[in-house]
Each structure stands twice: as C-alpha cells, then as structure tokens.
C-alpha cells in the first residue's frame, strides 16, 4: 500500500472509531432520564432572574474582592522576592510556597475559623471579607509568581537606562519597569481571575445565608429543595457565560501582546 493510501486508511479508521463512540453514547444513554433529571425547563426558569441578578453578582463580587486583595498583596510579595533584604525574600518565598501547596479550601477554613481562635479577632466583612482575605491570600501566592516573572521579563536594559538617567531604583521600578511588566502579565492575570471565579464555589464551607450565597451553593441548595439536578446545570451554564468571554479576552490579549513586541 502506498503511503498515501495508508494515510487515507488511518484517517478512515479514526472517523469510524469516532462514529462508533458517538453511536455508543447516543444509544446507551437513557435520554429520557437525562432530560428528566438535568434539563427540566420549568425548574430552570424558576431560578431566574435571581440567579443572575443576585447570585451571579455575588460570585462576581467575591471574585473581585479576592482578585483586588490578592493583586495588591501579590505586588508586595513580588517586590519582596526581588528585594536585596534577605529576610524579605525568605518570607515571600515561604508565603508563596505555602499557599500554593495548601488547598484553597483549607486556607479558607483557616482564615474563617483559625484566625479568630488564634488571635481573638475576626476578619471583618462577613463572607465578603473571607472571600477577599481567604481566597485573596491564595490568589496572591500565584499572582506573585506571575508578577515576578513579568518584572524579570522586562529587558535589563530598561533598568540600566533608567538608572543612567539618574532615576532612583524605586522610581525606575514604579514608572518604567512595572508598567511594562503589567503589559506582559495581563493574560496570565486574567487567567488567574477565571480560576478565582471557580474557587468562589469553595466559600460555602464557612457558612452562608440565603442572600450571600454564590452560584454553586445556590445550585446545590436548589437541587435539594427541588429534588432535581437541573439547578446545577443552570449554575454550570452561568459559570460558562461568565468565564468564556474572559478566556476569549485572554487569547486576544495574548495575541495583541505578542504583536506589540
């Protein structure tokens, strides 16, 4: 058989295998049961508009809180990592390693229950505060690395040129290096934002009220009260609606960033 014929044969086999798999799924699945348990329109429609006007908003608010707190902390950590002062470097490194290794769920529990038991004071702001601090601390660990990499990716010539112009190192950092670094790291930061959106689903564990719930908790609670899994599908769908545009944005930003250089 010629190479070309073999290629065609292989391709045909792949198509047939795919067809077999699709047919198997289509024929073995109990579609009536799937529709009954996961796609009941009347249950789904009952969830609107609150699921969008309140609970999706809650999810976004918690994400923003975590992102803003985390980004501020990450900036500090990144600068500490690059600091000439030894202990600052070590502390920042320890922080990053710890909060990247420990599951986000554990961090949230520690912030909510551990901090008050250890220090006698609660993080203010209720669930919003726990999202900001708990999730923010986790996000900061990842974003610190991203920011550090971004700073180091700025050509060294920039710092040298700035210094030779008579700028102090801090001036150079804040007016020359950091702005360029941020352009580089916007795609990975947007990625981190998307990850934080999903991590807000962990916040239920520190206790919620009917109004402060985010999407996943709402989905689960409604699943219980309806005895049906449709609310979970609705919640998943709304997560998609929120994150897909962001991931497209990330790809556009990456392309534009690459062009800009």
């Amino acid at each position, binding site marked *: 058989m010629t190479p070309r014929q073999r290629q065609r044969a292989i391709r045909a*086999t792949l198509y*047939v295998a795919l067809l077999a798999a699709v047919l198997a799924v289509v024929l073995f699945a109990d579609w009536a049961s799937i529709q009954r348990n996961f796609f009941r329109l009347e249950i789904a429609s009952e969830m609107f508009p609150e699921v969008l006007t309140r609970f999706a908003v809650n999810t976004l608010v918690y994400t923003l809180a975590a992102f803003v707190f985390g980004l501020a902390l990450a900036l500090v950590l990144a600068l500490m990592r690059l600091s000439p002062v030894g202990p600052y470097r070590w502390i920042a490194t320890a922080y990053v390693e710890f909060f990247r290794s420990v599951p986000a769920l554990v961090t949230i529990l520690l912030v909510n229950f551990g901090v008050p038991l250890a220090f006698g004071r609660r993080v203010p702001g209720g669930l919003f505060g726990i999202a900001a601090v708990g999730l923010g601390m986790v996000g900061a660990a990842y974003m610190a690395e991203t920011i550090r990499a971004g700073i180091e990716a700025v050509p060294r010539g920039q710092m040298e040129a700035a210094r030779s112009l008579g700028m102090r190192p801090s001036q150079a950092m804040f007016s020359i290096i950091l702005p360029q670094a941020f352009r580089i790291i916007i795609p990975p930061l947007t990625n981190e934002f998307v990850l934080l959106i999903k991590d807000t689903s962990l916040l239920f*564990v520190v206790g919620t*009220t009917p109004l402060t719930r985010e999407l996943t908790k709402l989905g689960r609670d409604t699943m219980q009260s309806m005895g049906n899994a449709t609310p979970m599908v609705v919640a998943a769908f709304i997560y998609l609606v929120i994150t897909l545009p962001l991931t497209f944005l990330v790809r556009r930003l990456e392309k534009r960033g690459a062009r800009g250089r």
Partner: protein
Amino acid sequence: MKLNRLIALLAVLTLVLAACGGGDGEATDTTDGAEPDTTETNGDGGAAADFETISEGVLTVCTDAPYPPMEYEDPDNPGEYTGFDIELMRAIATNLGLELAVVNVGFDPITSGLAMESGDCDIAAASITITPERAENIAFTDGYFSGDQSLLVLVDSGIGALEDLAGQSLAVQTGTTGEIYAQENAPEDTEIVSFENPGDLFLALESSQVQGVLQDLVPNQDYANNNESAAVVATYPTDEEYGFAAKKEGSEALIEAVNAQLAALREDGTYDSIYEQFFPMGG
C-alpha cells in the same frame, strides 16, 4: 486491499454494536427487591432473602458524621463508626443476618435520596427527622427517636433564649429541621448562617462567627457535656421523630424488615440498652 477490508469490518461491527445497543438504554428506576414475598422477617437469618442489598450479605448504611452521640467515628476502632444510630442499625442488621457497613456521605445526599438512589447505600441512618417534604423523596421507617430543637451558646454570652439573638448571628445546618425552625422562630433581624458540616457549627460558635447554634438537643447537649465553654440554654419541644430512610421506589421490603426489627428490639429490651449506652442520664 487488506486495510480496506479492515475498515469495512469495523464499519459492520459499529452497525452491529448500534443494533444491539439500542435495547439497553433502560431507565434505572428499577426495583431491587422486586420479590413479592415481602412479609415476615422473624429474627435471625433467612430474612435477608426478602430484599436485595447492594453488597451481598451486608447492609450498607449511609450516615452524616460527625454528629455525636448519634453517629461518629469510634475512637477505639479507627475507621469504624459508632453512635446510637449506628449501634441500633447494627442490631437490626445482625437480626436480619447481615453485616453492617457504614458510609459517610453527608446530610443533603441523604435527605434528597441521591445517596440511596445512586447505590451508595441501602438505607440511611443519620438522625433524619421525618417530615412530609422529605417523605416525597425518600421512604421512612417508623420513628425510632424523639427529637427536640435546642439552642447552644457560649457560657459567658448572656444569651438565654432565641429572642436574645436579635441582631446577632445563629448557626444552623443546611437542610435540617433546625434550619426551618430558626427561619420560623428566630427574631427578624437574626442572621441565620447555614453550614454544610455539622461539626462546623461548633467551630463557628467558638470562633464567635455566630452567637448561637440551633439544632437538635442531642448533639448540642453532647457538645455542652464535653466542653465547658458552651451550654444549652433553651430547649424547644417539637413532635419530631427520627426515622431511617431508604430510596423512594423499590425499598418496601427493606423498610418493612427494619420496622419489624425496630418493634422486636423495643420488645426484647435491646433498644433500651443501646439507649442507656449513649444517653446514660436518660436525657
């Protein structure tokens, strides 16, 4: 060409698969214990034949632990569970000629019936209060325990009753009758915070996230007995009873067998001795 023939063979196989597969996409609302003779289960042995269990010769029980003294990990037997619910279930299983296996699945999968429907267990023992709403999704046995609601607070808090929690926070467990009681009876401006895990209720109280815990008397009293920091300050009698639960459809034989055992165990004093074991002051 040999390969063309191979492709043709694959295509034929696919069609055959499709033809055979068409008949198998059945709904899974099957009945396990479909055997018609669901009557007497008299004490030892032989009764297991009246209903099927997920695992042969074993009664698999779902629970939501830790919830002392009803269900919790046995400190003397790591990995095993004990507690009033579990030991009562063990006695029932033994009389039915079955061994006991316990799975900790959490409360919501139990009250929604998902745990039993999906085959995680045959029956659930988790201090489940019998309510008409729940009875729509799961099948209950007869009641085996009376429950009251209660309020647990820190001893130096100055709180004596639910009314004192105006403007404060109250912890409840998600999906429980305690949550419903709180929603109906707590002051308007009390923030009711729902936790999934019963153990977190006490953590929330100790860390001052909330100022009170509203749940069944049994676990609250157990916590107060073991912790000097907290005390039960109020009890709210209800007509609530706990029942064991199985999946809605197809568990009639199992429910009947368990009901018969519950009656038998009360008669022969086993129920009382298990009760004494976990509620020594008759509380």
